[in-house]
């Protein structure tokens, strides 16, 4: 596993924010970027079109400093959501230590969510990774929209969370649930690290 390098005493977690177009992946990263002290974060790289759609991917490196004697870094990526950027998505997914699936809570987006989820599964398979072994957290974004437009977290759990992975309700624009999600996925990744290093 590339997560821990004992020789150089480095831990690097690559976390990929996945999900359909306009579900709020980049918004998550923007919110995190705004909360990380300047000395801890690298430059956020974001390639977007004029209408702010992610063209390639967003990348935000965060330096957590020395933890247990290990220089610890988190690298947060987003993938472009639009269907036709699948090659990029597959590329970004390579070597991921954890995935956050950002679902759009709007009822009319349910099919897009499902399609993206299936796309995640197949892209992981392309890398020879079974989605069941990959640390995964669900984030139900846009929960701040009017009730009549969105599905509740429970409904979304029923519709999307087949494997009962940790799920978080969020309003990424205002930050609610953003760090909780990040924390949730980090825990899963670190648990896997513990399992990996004792194996």
């Amino acid at each position: 596993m590339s997560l821990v390098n004992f020789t150089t005493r480095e831990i690097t977690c690559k976390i990929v924010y996945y999900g359909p177009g306009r579900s709020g992946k980049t918004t998550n990263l923007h919110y995190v970027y705004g909360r990380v002290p300047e000395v801890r974060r690298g430059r956020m790289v974001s390639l977007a079109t004029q209408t702010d759609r992610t063209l390639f991917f967003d990348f935000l490196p965060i330096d957590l400093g020395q933890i247990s004697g290990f220089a610890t870094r988190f690298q947060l990526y987003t993938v472009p959501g639009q269907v036709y950027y699948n090659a990029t998505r597959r590329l970004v997914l390579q070597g991921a230590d954890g995935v956050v699936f950002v679902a759009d809570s709007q009822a009319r987006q349910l099919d897009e969510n499902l399609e993206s989820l299936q796309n995640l599964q197949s892209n992981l398979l392309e890398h020879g990774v079974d989605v069941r072994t990959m640390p995964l957290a669900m984030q139900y974004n846009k929960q701040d929209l009017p009730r009549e437009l969105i599905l509740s977290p429970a409904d979304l759990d029923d519709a999307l969370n087949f494997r009962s992975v940790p799920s978080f309700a969020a309003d990424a624009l205002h930050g609610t649930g953003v760090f909780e999600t990040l924390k949730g996925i980090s825990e899963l990744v670190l648990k896997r690290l513990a399992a990996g290093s004792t194996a």
Partner: protein
Amino acid sequence: MTTALNVKYSFDTFVVGAANRLAVTAGRTVAENPGAAYNPLFVYSCSGLGKTHLLMAIGQAAKKLAPGLNIEYLTLDEYVEAFHAAIAAGQGDAFRRRFQGVDVLLVDDVQFLAKRKEMQSELLRLTEALQVAGHQIVLTSDRPPGEIADLDERLISRFSGGLVVDIGPPDYETRVAILRRKAEERAARFAPGVLETVAGAAFDNVRELMGALNRLVAYQAVNETEINAATAKQLLGLKAEAAVPAGAAVSRGAAPAGDEFGQFLADVTVGLGKAVEAWRARVAEAILRWEGEGYRTRRLEALLEQEAPTAVDDAIGAYEKDVERLKMLETEVAQLDPQASGQSLFRDPERLADAEATAAQVRTGAAPPPGPSAAFSLTSYAVGPSNDVAVSAARDVIARPGKKYNPLVLVGKSGLGKTHLLNAIGLELARAKGAVVASLSTQAFIDELIAAIDGDRVDWWRARYRRATALLLDDIHLLAGKDRTQEELFNLFNLLLDKERQLVFTAPAAPSVLEGLEERIVTRLGGGLVAELSEPDRDLKRHFLEQALAQPGTPPDAALLDYLADRPVDSVRSLVPVLQRVVSAAAAQDVPLTAGLAREVLEGQPREARRSGGLRTSGIVVSSLGGVKSREKMVWDWPDVADRLIEEYR
């Protein structure tokens, strides 16, 4: 009046982390070289991060390295109080004198200078005086100099003129290290994860951290039950991990409050603490600590590369023991021979054996004394009737060192080649297996002894020379009036003579006529052979010139050699500038080196040729190349007064 340094506050008990590494390094440097490195050193940080500890550690380390230093630690308040008391008693001048005599002044909490104009000017005067005298000042404050309210501009610039460093709040890693060390000091043992939990709580301040630890220690002692991480959290009132479960309603537009990143960092820290096996964390922490102190950690890194090494703690313990040993050796070596300390092998536990060997060498003075200069070989030494006695004596000495002429004293005026011959003998003697040839100027010998006396390591200095198989001193007359050096040389002389080790000296005149030397030295110098080098004869000069002008394939012009060898010079050395002038003239005019050219350069051209140039001159012919040597000024005929006036008027 001043507070005694608390022995508990030393560098050994100071836990170094990323946030305080710079300050500690600066502190150590200052303690090792008071007044020389950063003066003043100004350390600032929030309360409870170790300013006082660092200040006292500097004091103690400086005292340990140089016990004779006058070191004062006091808080600004104490200083103010003492000043007022002194003024009230009419002892202001005595007070000032007392502080101006301090070698290392450590003042804590100078932020209280704010709005105290009188004290500011007093401290300004004191810092000026101490700095001028090369004495060290270290100050601490809870804020940088520029932020102390109403602080005199001159004080700000003076405080900032040395080094201003801050100590940040300890990171998680350092907090764990501090907690472990303090728990160890209190002989308290905690279940795995407890100290990590406390450290994960992001205390900004070491005192609060200590308070938390003390609570746990007390609780565990009273209840006789082992605390686990959860109990510790509860006991210390740390927040339970906040999570937003998926089912919870999200209030519209409500932004989360507080330091989300800090909380996230703390959570990841705890998570990682659990994920990274405890032994790995311990090894990694040890690496960080010792790396930070400049030690090589290869052995510990090798542990990390293993899957499940056995006896990790023993390995770390053994490593730390080796480091402690290295520290001791380095300190010892630094006292005996400052030049030998600071070697990288004292920072590499893998080379402990080498470090031990080096220290043993230094202890016995094995650092070799200065040797002969390689520039003076015997083959390049020009020989002629004027020095053949000395040279043949030298050859005898080289063939049978210590047996035939001991000591050999080479006597002659300056520039006759005494130093060359001395070094040539040294070089030849040094060829022998196991030879330790000490060859140096008497002045260097005196300077070394002074430094040894100054550094309180005369025994080491003596040992260094006593193991020499030959001692060669240039210009022995410089011993005049140096009683202590004469005493040392007398003892060394006897010792080396007894062991049949060769002694060679040079002097401008026979030992018996040298002034300022003790009788016992003079008689001993005269006890071997005093070989005189006289003014160079023609053969010697020709030989010297031949060597100097030798070029591969083209032997020098015989007429030129004859001409130059006939020049009246009183030493070989004074032949060198003559030769240089001719050679550079030949190069400048791009003509071959010939006797004619040499004559032209050294004696000037016939008068008629000069006159044809239409110049009015004084008649004093100076070399066309500058490099005027009065000896080479030739007066062809006495100039008339008018000529001289014009020349001088120009």
